[in-house]
């Protein structure tokens, strides 16, 4: 049994030699692996960031209780008392119709004049309530909202979960599309890698025969080709990460320049370590599978 360090040194040394010798073919395999991982990783990146956004949104635990137009002071006071006495409430504040209009003008500076063209302010007064952390789940929020909606002078109580649920559906759809598209391109990448290595196997047929004749085991004979696939996959994964990082940076600057009202929630981030490892691992796996598929050519050679 060959020592592991010698085995790895032999396989990776021979693999690097083979890749340098056929750098054009190898580069095409690396590029197509990178392309597939950019597609897959791009969708993961977007969905991951959207998930983060939804998570932060959910964590806010905001419920907004809108008052009917023409509500009385006593109705407002009664609602405020009821809200204050609820054990689920962390804090709340009253937002008058004028304050709501001012906030709208601040959030949508380009649309601020819109309110001036309307005869009356359409934005109702409301209570903006922050629910305690323990109660930031759908069941508790729904129950609270229904309770407050039943109070006199209250028009409606809205919380974010409905929107979040829809957005989650969208994110999951995005992930699915990404998996399908990325998977399809990944299969193409595996086939390309297999073809590159198959060509290499044929070009190295004499070497394979010689190695078998001098007593090299099949793990040694095949190891270099597996190492070659793994290196191609690793380089493809690394290249994809660089491209995705660039895309991510551009995305951050785009969001920052856009001045979106969601900016306070959006914290565009690059992959975490797990996703980083996943992407590199997928690249290496694609390379290894390609190499395994290519062995048919080696098997037909003299044993």
């Amino acid at each position, binding site marked *: 049994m060959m020592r592991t360090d010698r085995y790895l040194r032999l396989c990776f040394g021979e693999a690097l030699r083979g890749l340098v010798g056929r750098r054009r073919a190898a580069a095409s395999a690396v590029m197509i692996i990178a392309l597939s991982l950019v597609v897959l990783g791009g969708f993961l990146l977007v969905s991951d960031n959207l998930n983060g956004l939804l998570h932060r949104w959910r964590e806010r635990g905001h419920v907004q209780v809108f008052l009917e137009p023409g509500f009385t002071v006593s109705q407002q006071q009664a609602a405020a008392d009821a809200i204050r006495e609820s054990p689920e409430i962390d804090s709340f504040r009253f937002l008058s119709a004028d304050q709501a209009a001012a906030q709208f003008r601040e959030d949508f500076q380009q649309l601020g004049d819109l309110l001036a063209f309307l005869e009356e302010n359409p934005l109702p007064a409301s209570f903006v309530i922050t629910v305690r952390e323990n109660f930031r789940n759908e069941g508790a929020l729904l129950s609270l909202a229904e309770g407050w909606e039943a109070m006199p002078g209250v028009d409606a109580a809205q919380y974010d979960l409905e929107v979040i649920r829809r957005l989650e559906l969208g994110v999951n759809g995005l992930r699915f599309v990404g998996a399908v598209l990325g998977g399809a391109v990944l299969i193409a990448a595996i086939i390309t890698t297999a073809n590159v290595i198959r060509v290499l196997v044929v070009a190295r047929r004499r070497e394979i025969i*010689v190695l*078998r004749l001098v*007593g090299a085991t099949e793990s040694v004979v095949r190891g270099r080709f597996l190492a070659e696939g793994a290196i191609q996959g690793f380089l493809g994964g690394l290249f994809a990460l660089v491209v995705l990082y660039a895309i991510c940076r551009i995305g951050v600057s785009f969001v920052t320049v856009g001045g979106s009202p969601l900016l306070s929630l959006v914290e565009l981030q690059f992959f975490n370590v797990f996703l980083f490892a996943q992407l590199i691992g997928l690249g290496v796996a694609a390379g290894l599978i390609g190499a395994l598929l290519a062995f048919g050519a080696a098997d037909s050679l003299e*044993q």
Partner: protein
Amino acid sequence: MIRCFHVAKRYGAITALRDINFQIDQGEFVFLTGQSGAGKTTLLRLLYRAELPTSGQLVVTGRNLATMPRRQVPRFRRRLGLVFQDFKLIEDRVVFDNVALAGLAVGFSFNESQRRASELLRLVGVDGRAQLFPGQVSGGEQQRVAIARALMTAPQLLLADEPTGNLDPKRANEIMRIFHAINRTGTTVLVATHDADLIGAMGRRTMILEAGRLDTLAVPSQVS
């Protein structure tokens, strides 16, 4: 070293070898001769377990090749040194690397492979060509390199299939002298050749194959 009992090899309807029986003892130097197509290469391929006999038993270095699992073939081959007419050198590796790679492939360390390659190339007299590619050296030198590679694992048995087929008589004799020297160290040598002059000059036991049948265990004077 080699024991062959009623070995036959058929490829479909074609019988390449029939009822082959012989024995070669440790330390012997034996020639295997016959016309082209007589079955010399087929018999050698059976001996290094590139193929299995259709029937019969073949015991080489104590291993019954007919029953040996395929996964054990690499370890078995490390007991053998193989030399071929076409040298089977790797064209895009220099002479030194051709030899050293054989050491790395069977598990020697990098340093040991380098040291052995260096010694073996000196032994066969091509150390001055170590950094040249096979295409840059003569046929005789290429065959010496192939012999050096075959000796990397210090084999018990050296099998050579027409090792002088591509060489002029002078180079052929040089190669034979190397085989002779190797044999004197105790390595069993079996050389397949159709060169009667070479066989006559060496004066060793000779097996003659005719149409797949081992007809005669001849002494050199009987070979024509």
